[in-house]
């Protein structure tokens, strides 16, 4: 067998490995659908069944949810997936896992394409660099975390990488078709995830400027392709300028536009948010503090990666800058641009493209360590390998075996609660859910469309008019409820507990 066959086999192996760790136990780990996932799922389901979203709009361009509008690509993809796999967690999460695995595969070609400009590296090391980068992305906690749940950003990231890869092909081959694929692919991302409504247009402007300045013969085709892309992006650009299109930005903006000296403070606040994405504590220790975004008490990067990251940066500074360096610099600079506009900042999901340059520098650092010409390299490599294996085992154990630690950040056992209510209710039952349960109505819509309930607060008392009617009262266990229940006849029908060894009661279902 020649080298090419080995390369293909190894690449396929990496792809299957990436797919396996993304799909394994995907329905139950992470534990339950989180609030945005369930909204996407419900809209995807109604689109599949009726061609309308939850608000009755036929094949909408943007999906209204939680006071903002969700981008359409991921929801339509989930509809397709539901048509294939049914109405379940697997169907909701498989598009992310699929595109996440594809991104890993694509990253091989991207790494291979940019490393060839590092002429000082031998071809064998260039190949090794590409495989290493692919492997590191495959096992990256940052990428894995978002690939295993219904996060639309993963799909956007795939198209973003696809667009950049084809731009590099265009740069090398000067084929017009590549530029069309590149720009249109970048265009698709703005229909996929909010942050890319800023990242992608900015990237497109930079790439267009690059062609104008550095590729004079391609200026004409660049104009043409840009125009076509602009036309394709027009609906979203116009939508983004409307009140509805700006709704999400208004929800998360870091700038309260009412502040009197705002314009004086905002640039510095933006810079501070931007720099936060390069904070070592954010990258290696704590992440962004959102339970859904990292494994409990772990950062988005492995700690051992800090050493090759420093080595890689050292060599990038030391060596003369090449296309490789410029691509990395471009990705480093562009990735946090959108995330810095919003709060909380830093934010792992909104700055997701940052994962590419970081992985590439880590991989480059490892290659540089391997190129050390004395015994020290074996010592360093051995040390790194030991720490890397240990950390991966620790991470996998925490992720796959002890995911319930972050239960509250995911489904919080709402599915189990709704299923248990369904067992105890009949057509005459009135259901009252206390606000302290914290369950969003989307969960009820998705898991039991026919369930009618009333949301009540802590001061709720059973109305006298209900008399002898069956009343189910769902609440978290707390003293205030207990005191009230002591005053009226009640029966504990069922409880929902945490799915760990302690079975702590989360919710009680009372019959009043």
């Amino acid at each position, binding site marked *: 067998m020649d080298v090419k066959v080995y390369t293909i086999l190894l690449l396929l192996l990496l792809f299957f490995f990436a797919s396996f760790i993304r799909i394994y136990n995907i329905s139950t780990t992470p534990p339950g659908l989180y609030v945005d996932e369930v909204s996407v799922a419900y809209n995807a389901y109604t689109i599949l069944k009726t061609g309308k979203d939850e608000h009755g709009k036929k094949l909408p361009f943007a999906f209204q949810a939680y006071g903002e509008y969700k981008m359409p690509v991921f929801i339509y993809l989930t509809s397709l997936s539901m048509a294939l796999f049914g109405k379940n967690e697997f169907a909701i999460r498989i598009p992310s896992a699929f595109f996440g695995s594809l991104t890993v595969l694509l990253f091989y070609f991207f790494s291979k394409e940019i490393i060839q400009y590092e002429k000082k590296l031998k071809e064998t090391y260039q190949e090794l660099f590409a495989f290493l980068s692919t492997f590191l992305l495959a096992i990256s906690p940052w990428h894995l975390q978002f690939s295993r749940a219904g996060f639309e950003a993963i799909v956007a990231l795939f198209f973003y990488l696809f667009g950049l890869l084809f731009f590099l092909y265009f740069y090398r081959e000067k084929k017009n078709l590549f530029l069309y694929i590149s720009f249109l692919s970048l265009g698709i991302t703005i229909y996929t995830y909010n942050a890319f409504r800023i990242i992608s247009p900015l990237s497109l402007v930079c790439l267009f400027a690059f062609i104008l300045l550095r590729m004079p013969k391609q200026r004409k085709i660049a104009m043409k392709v840009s125009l076509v892309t602009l036309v394709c992006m027009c609906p979203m650009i116009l939508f983004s300028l409307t009140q509805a299109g700006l709704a999400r930005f208004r929800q998360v903006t870091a700038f309260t536009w009412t502040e009197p000296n705002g314009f004086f*403070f905002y640039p510095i606040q933006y810079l*501070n948010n931007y720099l936060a994405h390069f904070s*070592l504590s954010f990258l*290696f220790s704590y992440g962004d503090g959102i339970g859904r975004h990292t494994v409990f008490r772990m950062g988005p990067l492995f700690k051992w990666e800090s050493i090759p990251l420093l080595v890689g940066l050292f060599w990038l*500074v030391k060596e003369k800058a090449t296309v490789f360096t410029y691509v990395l610099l471009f990705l480093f600079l562009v990735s946090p641009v959108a995330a810095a506009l919003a709060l909380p900042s830093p934010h792992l999901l909104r700055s997701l493209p940052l994962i590419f340059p970081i992985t590439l520098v880590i991989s480059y650092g490892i290659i540089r360590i391997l190129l050390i010409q004395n015994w020290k390299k074996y010592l360093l490599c051995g040390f790194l390998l030991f720490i890397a294996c240990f950390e991966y085992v*620790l991470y996998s154990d925490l992720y796959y075996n002890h995911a319930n630690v972050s239960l509250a950040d995911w489904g919080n056992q709402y599915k189990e609660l709704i299923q248990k209510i369904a067992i105890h209710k009949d057509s005459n039952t009135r259901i009252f859910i206390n606000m302290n349960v914290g369950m969003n109505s989307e969960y009820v819509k998705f898991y039991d469309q026919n369930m009618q309930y009333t949301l009540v607060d802590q001061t709720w008392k059973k109305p006298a008019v209900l008399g002898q009617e069956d009343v189910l009262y769902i609440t978290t266990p707390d003293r205030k409820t207990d005191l009230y229940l002591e005053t009226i006849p009640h029966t504990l029908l069922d409880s929902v507990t945490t799915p760990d060894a302690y079975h702590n009661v989360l919710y009680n279902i009372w019959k009043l």
Partner: protein
Amino acid sequence: METIKKKKLLIVIVATLVVILYLSHWLGCRLDSKFFFSALDVKLRIIFDIRSDQYVRAWEARMLHNKITQGSVDVFNAYIQFWDVRFLFFFLSPLGVLGLISWTYYAIKKQRVEQFYEKIFLALSFLIPFVILFGFITNAVLMILLLAVPLLVLGFRGLFLLIANNKYYVYYFSLALIFSLWYLLILNTMIINFCHQ
């Protein structure tokens, strides 16, 4: 030569003033407890890790949730906070950070640290965070000064190297100066994230 000397002098004066302004905000403030390694925290964390999860086997607990692992992780987490880019911006000012970046850049490009005192201060800047995080120094003023001085020496050296080697240094310096003064506006509110009075 004379002009460069004058410019250097001017830069030293301006940079020193800015740095004094920044440090005056920090003096009297203790670094927050998250900068410190605590054996008690580690113990509590291990207990939580073992108890909060289901079916943690004995070998798993010994291998993954032990004091060596958790202690190393804690020291790592505490140590890298001293190199957090935002902390350095607030601690040394953007001007100081520009100097540090320049120093690092030229040290890497030339592949050597030229002066002996640079080596000493480089070693100190790496070591002093350890001294602080293990609680060997308790005096707040001393802590802040010990942390700042080595970094500032390297920073000033970096500014000199920038003047000597880069013809656009005036632009870089001016930009960093503007941001340094601008940053002062939010310094008091942001400093709270890193220290308590």
